[in-house]
């Protein structure tokens, strides 16, 4: 009897600190995001008036928000398509082909993932520098003479693609390692059979490897949506801060800007709510569309 009482107390003291802090610093702020989105809330404290869904109505007519929506969707689609194709290809090569220095390649490809986003932004700023950047001076080798430099981060039409390249560079290694893990679980006997029947490695990749790791690819699609939204914010914040003239504004960078620079906390949180709902809905749709019969091996 005494022991049982001690048991309950032990469990309580194990869980209570974690649960309390988790509630204060994660659950409460999350609830607050939804609550604040219904208020017109300006300045640090004080003035707040309940406006219902008014913030959301304004949002629909806010050109800057629509632009950030456009940019975010472009980023999600392009970054996902390129990263997934590259990382699947590299994972396929590194698990299936006999490559000298296989582990060296794996180690190098994963490096961007351990660097801070600020570091990555600084590196890409050096690469993209119009006058003395690595990229322009490299390109100058191919077009002699005084060609007009490309403004990778200054030209409104180009800058979003410069961000895309940085994001793909950052993500390829991470997803590659992930796909390598599930690819190495595919039984070798399947490939041996295919070899005997004379199927090329490319054919094997598409008709054995891809179908068998499909579940894993589906899961990563959700990661892509969520992490592109988050990482695009962190990269944009450190590299261009949404500029020039809003051409790289993404969902969360616009939210942050509204909340801090503009002190429209309520409006900023309404953006947060919409983005949250958007990412959930998109993940749901993608999950439904990519559903296939589960293959087992």
């Amino acid at each position: 009897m005494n022991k049982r009482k001690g048991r309950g107390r032990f469990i309580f003291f194990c869980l209570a600190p974690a649960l309390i802090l988790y509630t204060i610093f994660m659950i409460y702020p999350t609830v607050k995001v939804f609550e604040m989105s219904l208020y017109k809330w300006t300045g640090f404290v004080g003035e707040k008036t309940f406006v219902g869904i008014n913030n959301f109505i304004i949002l629909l007519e806010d050109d800057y928000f629509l632009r950030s929506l456009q940019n975010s969707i472009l980023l999600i689609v392009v970054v996902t398509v390129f990263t997934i194709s590259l990382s699947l290809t590299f994972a396929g090569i590194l698990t299936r082909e006999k490559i000298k220095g296989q582990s060296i390649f794996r180690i190098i490809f994963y490096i961007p993932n351990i660097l801070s986003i600020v570091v990555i932004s600084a590196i890409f700023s050096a690469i993209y520098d119009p006058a003395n950047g690595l990229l322009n001076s490299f390109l100058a080798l191919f077009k002699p003479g005084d060609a007009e430099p490309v403004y990778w981060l200054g030209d409104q039409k180009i800058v979003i693609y410069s961000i895309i390249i940085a994001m793909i560079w950052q993500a390829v290694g991470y997803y590659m390692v992930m796909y390598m893990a599930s690819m190495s679980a595919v039984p070798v006997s399947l490939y041996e059979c295919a070899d005997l029947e004379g199927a090329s490695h490319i054919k094997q990749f598409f008709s054995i490897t891809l179908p068998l790791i499909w579940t894993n690819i589906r899961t990563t699609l959700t990661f892509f949506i969520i992490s592109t939204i988050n990482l695009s914010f962190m990269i944009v914040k450190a590299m261009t801060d949404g500029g020039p003239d809003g051409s790289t504004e993404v969902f969360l960078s616009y939210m942050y800007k509204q909340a801090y620079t503009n002190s429209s906390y309520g409006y900023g949180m309404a953006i947060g709510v919409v983005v949250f709902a958007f990412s959930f809905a998109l993940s749901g749709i993608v999950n439904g569309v990519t559903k296939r019969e589960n293959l087992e091996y």
Partner: protein
Amino acid sequence: MRKKMNGGRGLSQLIIYVVLSALAISIVVPVAWVFMASLRQDNEFYGSPWTLPAGLHFQNFADAWGEARMGEYFLSSVLVTGMGIILLLALALPAAYALSRFRFRGHKVTGIFLMAGLFINMNYIVVPIFLMFVDADKALRTLFGGPFFMNNLFILALVYASTALPFTIYLLTGYLSTLPKEFEEAAYVDGAGYFATMIKVIMPMAKPSIVTVILFNFLFFWNEYILSMTLLTEMNGNRTLPVGLMNLMKAGKAAAHFGQMYAGLVMVMLPTLILYIFVQKKLTQGMTVGGLKG
């Protein structure tokens, strides 16, 4: 026939190596270039970026460390990361232990409640956390005459640890529930209490998963900058390294102190690179166990 096949093999092998090397070069060259740039003198930055530095200008590091205050920021980062990891382990280990080894009333609900946190990303809740601290400080100032929550490294570490809880508990619970029950039963028979059993019997066995947790969260805490930028706002006050680097980038470009800027960049990434060299295997394995990204 055989010869023809071999020829095709050779060509596709070649293409594979070219493609692999292209990506590897695109990663190694910029990183190596930063190391090189950190040793240049400021006036060397106006020429071609591809020349080797004229000399080894280590003064850049001294300038970044002192003048640009990266030394102080380095210390702050070490403190925040260290405190964050200690707090995280102190909070998450007992919680994961209770969740994985005991069945109690509300067990399932508690588990689901914590796992819901996996879907909450820090970037969304930065603003309410910031406002919460500003409000609390305002109240404290009228009561005790001093703020506490903003610009406090310990509080920053506490928030880091709290937001890392769901994933860490998820990871540890998964590992702990695979350990056989006999060890605890033997300990109870020997008269050990619950607490002693947890510390002396279970924790040593959980070491591999604890190492994984430390590695991931070291990278997360060390590299994070959005929350740090938001909660450490005092003019000329404390910063963590990534935020310091961001300021240095802005200032460095304006004042043309390029060497200093790249030296600061090296200071931020060198610790993670060194760690990575030693533990890269563990890291890429651990990732597939956890399989989740913030």
